[in-house]
């Protein structure tokens, strides 16, 4: 491997690490298309992407654990419900394949879902942006969450008090059956679309179950450790994991994940949601462009799609770092004013 390629992988890993640590998603979504465009076979692109996601999620989960942002009980329940949902999602895909409709339905669902969640998250964040008082108190991860911070849908779901009731981080009380239902639904979409599902699970944990955003990110990452580990193991059995790709990517992302995870405790929660929404919108446009290219057999659309994905990732990770620096400087400015 040339030094330039090594530097490229480390730099690319750094970029993805920031997003992964900050949002709890964005790994295979970015790595796999990039490796495909670089000419790696699909098996290696997907398998190495999953192994990379596994390694990065281990690091990011440990970091979020240090900040008290992982709810293990919720994570285990989510894994159980998601696994069942993925199986059902896969069966639906197989059935649609028999009917010859799988490709088009999956593509349209993917774009609509990615774009829909993107618009919803951005709209909600902008609507409630002024109410956020900035930052998240990680020293009080188990403190009661303010009722006004719980989204309306989550409040409705929490109101169905079907026993047994579970108490989650932030003092959130939800029925076990509601958690399993949400986990099953996100798993079904994940299995149907053939994606890791971080972009579905993270907002679902916040908007449907009502856990605080940093806990949603940390718990989502905890689940990705298991899904990424199992997926990469299965691909590795078929020779789909290339360590010369995974190891340098991981060296960069480990640093990026530290920066991204630390940024969640500095940057305003409303800003996290805006960035997340914009990144999903960028992804939706990129997938739509790629699908149009496939339908009309326009090869250059694949490259345009990759540039759109990488561009939005670069823009959003840059914005995360910039917002963190700005928040630190304004914090320093206000504390020196108080001292005066």
């Amino acid at each position, binding site marked *: 491997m040339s030094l330039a390629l090594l530097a490229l992988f480390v730099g690319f890993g750094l970029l993805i690490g920031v997003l992964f640590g900050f949002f709890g998603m964005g790994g295979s979504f970015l790595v796999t298309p990039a490796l495909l465009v670089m000419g790696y076979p699909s098996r290696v692109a997907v398998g190495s992407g999953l*192994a*990379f996601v*596994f*390694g*990065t999620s*281990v*690091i990011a989960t*440990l*970091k979020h654990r240090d900040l008290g942002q992982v709810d293990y009980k919720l994570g285990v329940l989510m894994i159980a419900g998601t696994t069942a949902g993925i199986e059902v999602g896969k069966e639906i895909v197989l059935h649609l394949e028999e009917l010859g409709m799988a490709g088009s339905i999956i593509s349209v669902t993917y774009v609509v879902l990615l774009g829909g969640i993107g618009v919803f998250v951005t709209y909600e964040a902008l609507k409630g942006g002024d109410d956020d008082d900035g930052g998240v108190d990680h020293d009080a991860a188990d403190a009661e969450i303010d009722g006004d911070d719980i989204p309306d849908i989550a409040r409705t779901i929490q109101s169905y008090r079907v026993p047994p009731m579970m108490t989650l981080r932030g003092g959130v009380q939800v029925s076990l059956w509601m958690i399993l239902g949400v986990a099953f639904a996100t798993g079904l979409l994940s299995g149907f679309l053939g994606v890791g599902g971080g972009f579905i699970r993270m907002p679902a944990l916040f908007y449907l179950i009502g856990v605080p955003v940093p806990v949603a990110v940390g718990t989502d990452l905890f689940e990705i450790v298991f899904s990424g*580990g199992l997926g*990469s*193991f*299965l691909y*590795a*059995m*078929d020779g789909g*994991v290339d*360590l010369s790709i*995974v*190891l340098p990517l*991981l*060296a960069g992302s*480990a*640093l990026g994940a*530290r920066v991204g995870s630390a940024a969640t405790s500095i940057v305003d929660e409303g800003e996290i949601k805006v960035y997340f929404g914009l990144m999903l919108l960028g992804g939706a446009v990129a997938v739509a462009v790629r699908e149009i290219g496939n339908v009309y057999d326009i090869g250059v659309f694949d490259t345009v799609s990759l540039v759109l994905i990488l561009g939005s990732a670069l823009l959003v990770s840059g914005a995360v770092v910039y917002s963190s*620096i700005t928040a*630190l*400087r304004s*914090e*320093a400015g206000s504390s020196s004013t108080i001292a005066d």
Partner: protein
Amino acid sequence: MIDPASLPPAAQAAALIGVVLLEAMVLYVGYGAAEQAIGDKLIERIKNT
């Protein structure tokens, strides 16, 4: 010395994932130590520039 190629596919796959896990743990500890050593100074520097 065990030849990795002679191992069954599941053992080879587990070894590969083990290498990734080991690198992740080493990087977590290594970058963690670096953060402890220079993290506060770096944040102070960002605040004061």
